[in-house]
């Protein structure tokens, strides 16, 4: 369902969107996205540059976050800006959780500013594949 501007208030949390990342997902993204960097496809290459194995594309993680925002807004075209800082690698088998909250509202433009993140729990510690993410969402 399409969310309206009146549904929003500052501080409101987005539902957390989780997915387990697999090599098949990352391969599907490489094909759809056109980024065939072997860091995301070839374990031997990834180990050669200091990772334990292949890592997901930053744009895979950002795509998951963006899809979560679009699903929350109920409209893929509501997002007018999205930004992310990539702070930690995502390994195969990781459960990535995308979330955020409403940071500011502009009633004249009917636009919300969201602060966003993607986290993963690994070895009893929390890592942040995306920190300081932000989106502008224009609602009807």
């Amino acid at each position, binding site marked *: 369902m399409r969310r309206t501007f009146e549904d929003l208030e500052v501080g409101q949390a987005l539902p957390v969107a989780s997915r387990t990342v697999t090599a098949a997902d990352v391969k599907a993204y490489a094909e759809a996205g056109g980024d065939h960097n072997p860091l995301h496809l070839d374990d031997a290459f990834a180990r050669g540059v200091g990772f334990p194995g292949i890592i997901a594309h930053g744009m895979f993680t950002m795509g998951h976050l963006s899809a979560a925002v679009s699903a929350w807004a109920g409209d*893929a075209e509501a997002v007018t800006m999205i930004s992310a800082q990539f702070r930690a690698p995502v390994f195969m088998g990781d459960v990535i959780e995308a979330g955020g909250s409403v940071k500011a509202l502009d009633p004249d433009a009917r636009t919300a500013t969201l602060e966003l993140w993607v986290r993963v729990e690994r070895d009893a510690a929390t890592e942040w594949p995306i920190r300081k993410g932000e989106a502008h969402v224009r609602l009807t």
Partner: protein
Amino acid sequence: MNPAAEGTVYPDVSFFVDPERVASFRRVFGSPQGVPPTYVAVAEFTVLPQVFDDPFLGLDFPRVVHGSQDYIHERPLREGETVTVRVRLESIRSKGANGFLTIVTELIDADGAIVCTAHSQLIERGPAA
């Protein structure tokens, strides 16, 4: 990386927003109908190989990781349209052993209007300490 490459503009590339490819991109993420905001990455990757292979820039690709990314949409991309992709190297900096490259990509429609501007920051990691 060669800091003198700052300001380089690469030849424009035409990019067709292929509905089948948009659908396969949406399937990866279970995205709603429409062109996902980060689909612009597909357009960026029509030109980025030229950047990675530019001998004047001299990027050491195996050491590159993605630092940050943004997409500013003036309007959504439309399935079936063709846009022009224009890429320039906005800044090249170094901090400690790492190099930081900011690439700006503009998608321009048939009327000459900017549809989306993307900033991509790539980090060329220094040798392990």
